[in-house]
Structures are given as C-alpha cells and as structure tokens.
C-alpha cells in the first residue's frame, strides 16, 4: 500500500494551550489511484501530509508510507516518494537543469544518471529548452511545473502534492491536471490536497473531506455526492414580495424561502440574498417559481461544492 494512516492524532502545544489539529484520522491509499484530500484552511491537510512524510512526529496513531513505518523509517520511505510542496522552494541560484541535478543528488542519484533524463523531465513539465533558464525568469506556473519535474527525479511510486494549482491561471491548471492524469495512467499513485472542488472532481478516483482534523466523508466523487446530498439544486435569488404586495422588510429570496422553501425542497440554505434549495425532484418547485415574478432561478445537479459547504459550513475560515 502506498500510504496507510490509522488513528492519527496530532496535537500542538501542551496543557491548556494544546491544539488538536488532527483528531483520529484513518486513510488508506490504493496503488495507482489519485486521492484528493479536501478541506477548508486549517482543516489539518498539510499537517496530515507532514506526518505522512515523517517531518513531524504524530501524537498518536500509526503511519506506513510505501510499506515502511513512519516516522521510524521515514527517510527510507521518502526514497520512493515525490513531493510538490505548497510554497515554492526551487533553488534560485541554479538554472532549471541544475535544480534537477542537485535535487537528484539528495536521492544519491549521480549526475551521469540524471543528465540524460533532463530533456524528458523538462518536456514533461512543458519546459522544453529551458535547461539553462534562471529561476527568476520563470512565471509562477512554470515554477510549479518545474517543482513537479523535480518531484519526479527519483521515479516515485507515490507523488504527494500540497495544493498544486493554487494561484495558477486556467491554462497552467489544465496543463498540471493533464500531466497528473498521465502519471496515474502510468501507475503512479497520487495524493493531493486542494480546496478546488472541480480539481478534485476531475482528477480524483477517491476523495476525503476533512474539517477540524476529522474526516467527514470519503469515497469516489459520485459516491460522496450521492451519500451526502440531494441530487438537484435550485438556486433562487432576486426580488420578491408576497402576493405581489409592495416591497417591505419581508422581501427578497430569503423572505420567499422562509415562507415556501420547506414546501417544495427537502433542505434549504440561505446565504446572503440567495436561497439554495436541495431536492430529489425539482419539478414542483420550478412550477411554483414560474409564478413568482421577480425571482430568478438556477437549476443544476448537486456537485461536490454543495457537499463540501453542507459538511464544513458556510462561515469564512481565515
């Protein structure tokens, strides 16, 4: 198994100031799958990865990385793992090619072994011919792609990516997604963290939603959606007054929702001036809304973001 985590607890600080960031996490990756760990900021995603790599000792629990116990044999296990960290850590004093050569050196790979593979690694990252380019001359997307190439110098069995597309433009995101799919097609197991639902929905065979250090849901994107939320969503917004009377304090989509949402949907969430109505069959609701002038609607299938917001709440996480 590429990664097995059971009963992971990570506490920072001691006594009354202790903060429990991970609270009894169980996770098991299957060979060759792409697994996404979703969660709002501060959910414990990065801490879980740091524990898995043996960069911090867990308070309790057992971790096996590439079959080896962590943190006891973390160093040996990391021989077979590639990591794309959240923060850029390329060596600004080296060229693109030198970054790869020096990093390979940390795995005990000789320069004569890695040099012939550099054109292939740079091509994979969409950086053909950038061998001698300086890091400062690269865009954010190029740096992230070079970091991906750097994570592949040891031909890892497991590739771990911490928010690989945060801050990238759509073109760069799509290129990274395409490369990650190619890697899973070649048999590399991938573990990534993200807070982009579309990223998880597109890439992941399975995913887990994490909040406040606990797993709230786990499974394939379809399974998670089916298990946790009604299949249809109608978003309602705009102007509304009851029985066409003049607008008062009781107006708008929120006012409509308090009066009628329960009649036509299983569950309704109000966020600002928009009502999100979740239902198994949207037809009666849409028929009712057709007679409500001023209200506008968006009818769509439920997606992962709906599940995520249901499970983790709509409050801001700063």
């Amino acid at each position, binding site marked *: 198994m590429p990664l097995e985590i059971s009963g992971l607890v990570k506490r*920072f600080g*001691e006594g009354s100031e202790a903060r429990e960031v991970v609270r009894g996490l169980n996770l098991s990756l299957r060979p060759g799958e792409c697994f996404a760990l979703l969660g709002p900021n501060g959910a414990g995603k990065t801490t879980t990865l740091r524990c898995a*790599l043996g*960069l*911090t*000792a*867990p*308070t*309790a*629990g057992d971790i096996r990385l590439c079959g080896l116990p962590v943190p006891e044999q973390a*160093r*040996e296990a*990391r*021989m077979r793992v590639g*990591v794309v*960290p959240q*923060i*850029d*850590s*390329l*060596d*600004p*004093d*080296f060229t693109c090619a*030198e970054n790869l050569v*020096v*990093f390979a*050196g*940390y*795995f*005990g790979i000789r320069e004569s072994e890695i040099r012939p593979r550099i054109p292939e690694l740079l091509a994979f990252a969409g950086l053909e011919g950038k061998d001698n380019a300086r890091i400062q001359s690269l865009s954010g997307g190029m740096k992230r792609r070079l970091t991906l190439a750097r994570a592949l110098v*040891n031909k890892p069995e497991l590739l771990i990516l911490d928010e690989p597309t945060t801050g990238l433009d759509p073109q760069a995101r799509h290129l990274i997604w395409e490369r990650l799919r190619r890697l899973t097609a070649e048999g590399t197991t991938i573990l990534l963290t993200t807070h982009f639902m579309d990223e998880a929905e597109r890439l992941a065979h399975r995913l887990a939603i994490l909040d406040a250090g606990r797993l709230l849901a786990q499974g394939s994107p379809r399974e998670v959606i089916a298990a946790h939320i009604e299949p249809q969503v109608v978003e309602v917004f705009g102007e509304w007054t009851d029985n066409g009377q003049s607008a008062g304090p009781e107006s708008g989509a929120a006012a409509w929702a308090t009066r009628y949402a329960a009649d036509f949907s299983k569950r309704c969430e109000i966020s600002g001036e928009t009502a999100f109505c979740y239902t198994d069959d949207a037809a009666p609701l849409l028929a009712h809304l057709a007679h409500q002038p001023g209200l506008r609607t968006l009818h769509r299938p439920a997606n992962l973001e709906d599940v995520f917001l249901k499970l983790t709440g709509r409050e801001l996480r700063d």
Partner: protein
Amino acid sequence: MEKPSGRRGHFAPPRLSLRFAAVWRRNFLVWKKLALPSVVGNLADPVIYMLGLGYGLGMLVPQVEGVSYIAFLAGGTLCYSTMNAATFETLYSGFSRMHVQKTWEAIMNAPIALDDIVAAELVWAASKATLAGTAILAVIAAFGFTASPLALAAIPVIFLSGLCFAALGLIMTAVAPSYDFFMYYFTLFITPMTLMSGVFFPQSQLPAAVRSIADALPLSHAVSLARPLLLGKVPHDIPLHAGVLAAVTVAAFWLALALTRRRLLK
C-alpha cells in the same frame, strides 16, 4: 497509543550520516558560481584593517610582546576573519536557505534528515571559513609577516575555529525571526569578544575581572593557538585550547540542532 512528545525528542543526540555531503555539495556549487567576488570579499576587509592598523598604529607601538605590531596583529586578524566568515555564512546565508528560500524544507522532502542538513551547514561554513583564513594566511606570508613553516599548522586551527563559530552561529539562525535579529549577536557577543580575545592588543592589558571572562571565550583560544604558530613558535597548552574549541563546537551544534528541530519539525 500515545507517543512520547517532542520536547525531549528535540534534544536527542545528533544522528549524522555521510548524506550530509550532498547538501554540502549544493552549497559548494552555488558558491562556485560567485567564487571570485566571495573570496575578494572575505579577503579585502581584514587585509585592509591589518595593513592600516599594523602600519598606522605600528608606528606608535614599536614592539608588542617582542615582535613588530603588525606581526602581532597578523595572528589575531587570521582568527578574527575566520570567525567572521563562519558567522556570516551561518547567520545570513544559512537563514536565507532555511527561512527565505525554503531550501532546507525542499531537502527534507527528499531522503535526507534535518540532522544531516544542519551538519552540512556546519561543515560548509567551516570550509568557507578555512578558505577565507587560508587566503589571508597566504597574504600574510606574501607580505613577509610570517616566515615559519609552522604557520601551515595554523590551517587546522582555522578549520577548528570555523567549526566552532559556525556552530555558535547556527544557534542564532535557529531562533532568528528575521535578519535584523543578527545585529544583537554582533553587538552583544562578536564585537566584545573580538576586543577581549587579544586580536588587537595583548590580553595582559585587560583588567583582572575582564581577563577571567576573556579566558573563557573561544576566540581567545583560537588566537592562543594561531599567533605563536605564525611567529614560528609551538603554542603552550595545545590540548586545552583545542579542547575548548572542540567542546564549544559539540555543545553549540547540539543546541543549534535541538532548536532547529523545534523550529522545523513541528
């Protein structure tokens, strides 16, 4: 099952391996790109001070401990510039690699432990200090301020001093919130130590109370070894001086490593 928590773990003995060499090599390859300005930078300042003070003050002070002032100053300059080279490397360059560029974090994702990274920084800074010190030794010899083959024995002294001040510097790097913090280390430790360690004038000039503190400072021990060697004499109490430098190196490295583990392995 609860595992033993961190605090004791940070002070566990260093676990060192030859894997530190890959990290040392990384620093060497970066240095190689800017080798010439780096060596000139390490050389120019101390040589200018040595010649300026040596000839300028030397006119007023004909003899110090039986030799010309500039010959007296040569051994002090050698130790003080070795100390500065090791200190600057571990403070400013080390902090850049650890905190600003996240180079250490990148390396820790590879199969190299933090202990090896900190050890590589220690040996690298000592290597760079040895290069700087040896270059100054060559200038001293070229000017004829030392004529004894015993001066070559100062090179291991330079390396040991480099290790010692690199280890002390790494403690500061481990706790520094920003570059500004390092000013305290220079004004409160390095500068007073330089003035008390017999670099510019004999320690016999110090008041007795200060003298006892001065005797404990690592730079004093480095000067006690290097100066006689440059003057063609075998130093007194070699085991004592070398032992103090080695002991400070080990203790400071251990503490620096514990503080770095606490900072990065959380």
